[in-house]
């Protein structure tokens, strides 16, 4: 009897060790593709699933963490409040990477304030916005990223312009901002791997079509529009080590290599335009232009060396805070005596 060899990653686990429950989202939902790529990315990085937690808010997007990484702890909390849960949880064990999942309703409307403050605090995590430009779980209302002029059955015509979440992330001080398309699995997976390799907060705004409520061919977040208009800024790939980088076909000056905080590498190969993702003003210009000209730029929009994370701003022990023994948490009797003396 022959048994088929199962591929194992660096930590000896099979891809099936990274799976989740069967999805209950609509067949064809963009979020399912994201779930698959998160699973692939973490497996390929060779990190155990126990080293991750999944935190989400409310909405179709926030249900999705149930569909991958069953061996990671998950917290499906309140609408818009995912960033707050992540803020507290990040101190429990700084060796655990936080994966945050949210939608455009969750992040761009009810949770916008938390989103921006989370970035300002630089809570180390990967924040994936599953952006379909519509409220799905409440059956088809405009969101803050819906395109102006979008027509929905009960809503009529959307009179307001959309917010660009990459722009919001940039002006809030994020040091890793990417845009992806859930129909472009390969690039999405590489961006997720890069985001996990970054020390500070990484934002990935994934345009992820809602097949039920917002997938008309001309809609900004539809499959058709995405397929026909996606314009990757570069050919983006993540490598575990420098020697893995395959230089073949790379003419000098046509690629850029960046070492990540965890020692891995990203390589961006130039496509038709020159784009420098380390220039914040260029990134803002790109986003302004792409909305104006309906130009769907994907890839790493902005990257810079991470500033101090919120954990690093406190002088905390290296070991997990949630494993520190009780005997190390209570001040001494002598300290209390001194307090009593001072208050007499």
């Amino acid at each position: 009897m022959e048994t088929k060899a199962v591929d194992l990653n660096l930590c000896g686990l099979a891809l099936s060790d990274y799976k989740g429950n069967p999805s209950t989202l609509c067949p064809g939902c963009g979020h399912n593709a994201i779930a698959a790529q998160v699973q692939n990315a973490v497996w390929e990085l060779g990190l155990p699933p126990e080293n991750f937690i999944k935190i989400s808010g409310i909405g179709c997007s926030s249900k999705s963490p149930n569909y991958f990484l069953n061996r990671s702890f998950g917290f499906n909390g309140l609408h818009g409040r995912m960033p707050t849960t992540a803020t507290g949880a990040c101190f429990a064990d700084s060796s655990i990477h936080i994966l945050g999942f949210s939608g455009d309703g969750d992040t761009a409307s009810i949770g916008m304030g938390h989103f921006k403050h989370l970035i300002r605090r630089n809570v180390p995590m990967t924040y994936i916005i599953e952006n379909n430009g519509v409220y799905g779980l409440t059956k088809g209302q405009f969101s803050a990223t819906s395109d102006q002029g979008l027509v929905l059955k009960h809503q009529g015509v959307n009179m307001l312009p959309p917010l660009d979440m990459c722009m919001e992330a940039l002006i809030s001080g994020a040091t890793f901002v990417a845009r992806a398309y859930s129909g472009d699995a390969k690039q999405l997976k590489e961006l997720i791997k890069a985001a996990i390799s970054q020390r500070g907060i990484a934002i990935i705004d994934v345009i992820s079509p809602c097949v039920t409520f917002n997938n008309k061919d001309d809609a900004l977040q539809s499959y058709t529009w995405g397929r026909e208009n996606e314009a990757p800024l570069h050919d983006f790939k993540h490598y575990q080590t420098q020697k893995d980088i395959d230089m073949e076909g790379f003419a000098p000056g046509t690629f850029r290599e960046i070492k990540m905080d965890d020692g891995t590498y990203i390589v961006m190969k130039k496509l038709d335009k020159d784009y420098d993702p380390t220039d914040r003003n260029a990134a803002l210009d790109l986003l302004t232009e792409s909305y104006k000209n309906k130009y769907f730029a994907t890839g790493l929009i902005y990257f810079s060396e991470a500033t101090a994370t919120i954990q690093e701003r406190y002088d905390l022990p290296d070991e997990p805070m949630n494993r520190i023994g009780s005997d190390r948490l209570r001040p001494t009797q002598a300290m209390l005596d001194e307090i009593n003396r001072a208050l007499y």
Partner: protein
Amino acid sequence: MIETNQITYPGDGPITNEFCITICTVNGSGSATANHILYRTFFHMGIPTSGKNIFPSNIKGLPTFFVIRVSEKGYTGRQPHDDIVVAMNQVSFEKDMKYLPSGGVVFYGDHLVMPEEARTDLIYYPMPIKALMKEIEVPRKLVSFMENMLFVGIVGQVLGVPEEALESTVLSHFTGKPAVAESNFKTIKAGYEWAAANIVKKDRFTTKKLAPMTDYILTDGNNAGGIGSLFGGLQYCSWYPITPATSLVEAMIDSVDQLRIDPVTGKKTCVILQVEDELAAMGAAIGAGWGGLRSMTATSGPGISLMTENIGLAYFTETPVVIWDVQRVGPSTGLPTRTAQGDLSMLYYLGHGDTSHIILIPGTVTECFEFGWRSLDIAEHFQTPIFVLTDLDLGMNQWVTKKFEYPNAPIDRGRIIWEDELENIDGWGRYKDIEGDGIPYRTVMGNKSPKASYFTRGTGHNEFGGYSEDPDNWSRLLYRIEKKLKGAISHLPSPIITRSKEEDVEIGIIGMGSTDDAIRETQERLAEMGIHTDYMRVRSLPSSPTVREFIASHARNYVLELNRDGQLCEILSLEVSEYSQKLISLSEIGGMPMTAEWAIESIINQERKEGKRGN
């Protein structure tokens, strides 16, 4: 309403160690240190003292009052009238004197213009503050602070406070800053000497040194609660500033770096983080509690309103977290700098759907310290949000209180299990009631066992955290949580009962929180009038069998509280419904601390009515 003209001072000799001084200034003028020196000196003389700051919601320019009550009898609750007024503010001057009975004393800066129809039944001591200041060399920017130090010297001398007592308080207040201590005491001494040479004492109030109160300290409940939490092994606090809770977190910020150094690594073991709003404060505190940290936040009523959805989530996901509510007056923005007990009903059932919570209600400052550490144990033991309910009066005012006692129980982390323990439990599920007491075992992030993880959700879930809409499952879950909370009752601080000297008295008094001083005074003074009562101070909800027995054993139980609706009375009427006819609500709301005068009058009036009913 007590009219000052109904009050007469008994006898004609000195009135020693029993009076109330109100210092009337403009807010922002820097009188806090002077007030502090004065009340702490009385305390150092061995006289029970309290200091209440009656302040406006403003930073500079409005009238503000600091009330010091000294009472050898230990009556340090609020008194509705003043005995002595120190007037430093022209704007409030005329009104300030209205609260004095005949024979009351007015110390006033002689730069103030005396009202045309000034009362003739008061004793006036003009103080040449401006003239005296000219003779003392102090930096210009400190002049207004030092003017306040002058009245400390003058008032102290007239009340018979020894000069050395003032000096030693100044020295201890400015420990490590000898130059500052010297210039302050120099000013106090100038006032003191001027008074000795120029004031002929006409009033009856005086002080006498007693045995030092060595088992006591003088501080506020927010300071106590903050330090108590740090002694409770707190690891995480996120918060958003709000009066009157801010100083609780600031007390922790001031001392966390000294108190919470890890003995092993020398690093810090507690994070305090100010966030963007109360929703974030609560959400992040839940994230930390879920992650296995001892976690809390502190706020006041409006903040609780914003935290409500999150607290429901913590309740339903069974996430331990402590929430301090230092109450102010609501509804709405209300009176942000005044005190009330109006959040009790809101907290008890806070959240949509079937929710109920454990509430701890400290009534003394030293209890704020104790409940600070204990609340974290209870939260982790029962895996639920725990409220600690205080108010502005207890939280921000100064009280003589028993020294803080070192926690007498080890830190309780509840049923957190790590890799090895998980191996020993067959068929573990996050929400499975293995012990039969409704309290499940919980794993937290970072547990490396492949069996440890689960999916926490605010939606319906089964024993393993899986999504469930099954009716039986839902009902089972809700009743298990109820069972868990009922089981907590015997672990909560029990009520404190102060019995009458008489046996089998008919009248019970029930109170909670900061009204303790006023009610103890009420009980004693009623006894002097021949009305004997037992007094029970409720310290936690849900109520215990002891509360039921107390209510059952008295014909009439007066429930005294600071809110409109008699919220504690309402809750007890539901919990002890078979005796609800024995409960009589006496509540008041005006934003001021309770007075014994109000309580005595209310009880006597009610007793008269009851008597008529009996006829």
